[in-house]
């Protein structure tokens, strides 16, 4: 399935560059053999957007910069520096001098204009396939308040990404995670929410109690997380807009943790500890009904719904070590899907439904990996002293996770990696970070 996704991407990039057959041929091969970790990124040019009214110069420059950062950050695109430009557009509506862009080997060209008016801003953009000289899709205009300028930039970048790859973008999205400060033996943790690229960070809780593993609702309006406010781990539901929170009423147990929403946002699956034993339960938020989904003396935890809601992937040590299993949404006899060496935990179903991301421990190293839902085609994407807790970008092409460094001064940080294992990047956060949950594209 990985191959199919990549082939799709290849085909779309090919389509975008058909006017240059020789180049396209060689790129098709490069993109089609992504398992080798080699890809030629698509060169693109984005001349700074035109300020259409006085006073919009800075905003135009900032928006252009964020669009470029989004595209560069994927590893699929490579920005051509402005110093290489032969000419720049004389205006947003002016004819494009394609020869000048072909000469510097730009394959895609993004042009745009920005007009500020009080606290409102309008952004226009067009995307061109330089070699065919054709516009890709129609020009688009976005309007919003000035303080939403980054979102507008992300939406332009999402449109460019989508038109060139044929897949949905992921830039106009947010991540909720645990911000960490202080030494290892006195770490303070609080929930934070930020744009996917680390901008616009806001804190949702203070650090008076341990908070763990926030999980976005499918629409991004609520966050489930584990809190020690009561002295014992319990699940809270937090409203993102109001930052109001309340404890989730769970089935009876000593501790509750590892919650996730169902895709309609009406049910929560989680782990409950009763008498030292951890099993998976489900609570219906509408009816308040609780159901037990597993019933063994083993540890069953980290449940995650399939996108169609029919199945749940989770980890269990019933075989003697942590392994991944899939069961029906109402429980029942699960099927083990992980059989490699080592231990497998924290499975998360891809939003596309085709892959399951997981944390793997083997020979003292931690890895983030993906496998098909039947356990085949396992691929480890990262390796370090401690990588854990994958979460999917809304388009299922990128995974974010937490990495902790070794030793007494060990610190945590967020990273992202492509599902091909390429493009490992640190996500900028002001302090340490762990347990990321990537939310949906915003509306």
């Amino acid at each position, binding site marked *: 399935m990985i191959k199919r996704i990549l082939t799709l991407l290849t085909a779309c990039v090919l389509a975008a560059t058909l006017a240059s057959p020789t180049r396209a041929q060689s790129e098709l091969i490069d993109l089609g053999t992504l398992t080798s970790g080699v890809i030629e990124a698509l060169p693109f040019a984005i001349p700074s957007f035109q300020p259409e009214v006085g006073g919009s110069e800075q905003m135009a420059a900032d928006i252009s910069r964020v669009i470029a950062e989004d595209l560069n950050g994927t590893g699929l695109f490579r920005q051509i520096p402005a110093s290489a430009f032969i000419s720049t557009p004389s205006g947003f509506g002016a004819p494009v001098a394609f020869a000048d862009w072909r000469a510097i080997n730009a394959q895609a060209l993004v042009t745009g204009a920005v007009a500020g008016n009080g606290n409102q801003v309008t952004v226009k953009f067009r995307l061109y396939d330089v070699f065919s000289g054709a516009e890709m899709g129609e020009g688009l205009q976005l309007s919003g308040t000035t303080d939403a300028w980054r979102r507008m930039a992300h939406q332009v970048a999402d449109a460019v990404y989508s038109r060139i790859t044929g897949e949905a973008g992921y830039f106009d999205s947010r991540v909720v995670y645990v911000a960490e400060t202080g*030494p*290892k*033996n006195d*770490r303070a943790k609080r929930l934070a929410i930020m744009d996917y690229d680390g901008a616009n960070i806001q804190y949702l809780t203070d650090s008076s109690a*341990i908070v*763990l*593993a926030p999980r976005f609702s499918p629409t991004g309006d609520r966050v489930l997380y584990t809190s020690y406010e*009561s*002295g*014992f*781990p319990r699940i809270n539901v937090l409203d993102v807009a109001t930052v109001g929170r309340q404890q989730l009423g769970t089935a009876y147990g*000593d*501790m509750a*943790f*590892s919650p996730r929403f169902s895709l309609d946002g009406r049910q929560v699956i989680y*782990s409950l*500890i009763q*008498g*030292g*034993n*951890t099993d998976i339960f489900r609570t219906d938020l509408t009816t308040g009904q609780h159901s037990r989904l597993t019933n063994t003396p083993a*540890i069953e*935890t*980290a449940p995650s719904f399939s996108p169609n809601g029919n199945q749940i992937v989770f*980890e269990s*040590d019933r075989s003697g070590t*942590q392994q991944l299993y899939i069961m029906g949404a109402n429980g029942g006899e699960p099927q083990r899907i992980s059989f490699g060496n080592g231990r497998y*935990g*924290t499975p998360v179903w891809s939003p596309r439904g085709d892959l399951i991301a997981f*944390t793997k*421990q083997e020979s*003292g190293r931690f890895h983030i990996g993906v496998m098909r839902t039947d356990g085949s085609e396992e691929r480890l994407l990262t390796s370090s*002293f*401690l990588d*854990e*807790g994958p979460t999917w970008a809304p388009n299922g092409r990128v995974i974010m996770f937490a990495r*902790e460094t*070794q*030793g*007494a001064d*060990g610190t945590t940080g967020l990273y992202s990696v492509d599902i091909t294992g390429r493009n490992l990047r640190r996500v900028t956060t002001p302090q340490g970070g*762990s*347990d990321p949950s990537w939310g949906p594209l915003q509306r």
Partner: protein
Amino acid sequence: MKHLIKAVLVIGALSLSACTNADRFNTTDTVDLNAQNGLNAANDINQTGLGGANDPSSPQFFSQTIGDRVLFEVDTSTLTAAGRATLDGQAGWLSTNSDYLAVIEGHADEQGTREYNLALGARRANSVREYLISKGLASSRIRTVSYGKERPIAVCSEESCYAENRRAVTIISIGQNS
């Protein structure tokens, strides 16, 4: 409940600052404890309010002399012989000092995923709880909580630290109905 938590925090802080090595029956430890007591005596610090470690009914005696924690092997919740000996002492103390309630904190080292370690810490805390109950303590006096890998006391990334972190700590406090 608030009262309980406050007491738990205070005692937790005391026990951590007093001594981080877990095995109270170790001879090296005994020397350390004696040295500390000697220092206190020399400085003539009056401990009547809290009760000293030499007062067998004091929380300090419980945490320092009897030992408030037991350690576990990697990825297990089975009590060791040394652990059972410590818990025999705890059970005896709690039987005598029946005003006290106990919360057993289960912990794991950093080699593991967050969720699994929470569940593992709960198994460890429950092993201690069940052992204490088997020694005649009322189940209503003993609660458990797991911190997983969230509260290491030793910070290095080596077995010497991991061994200290794979622990279950018995935190005592005066019960509300005493």
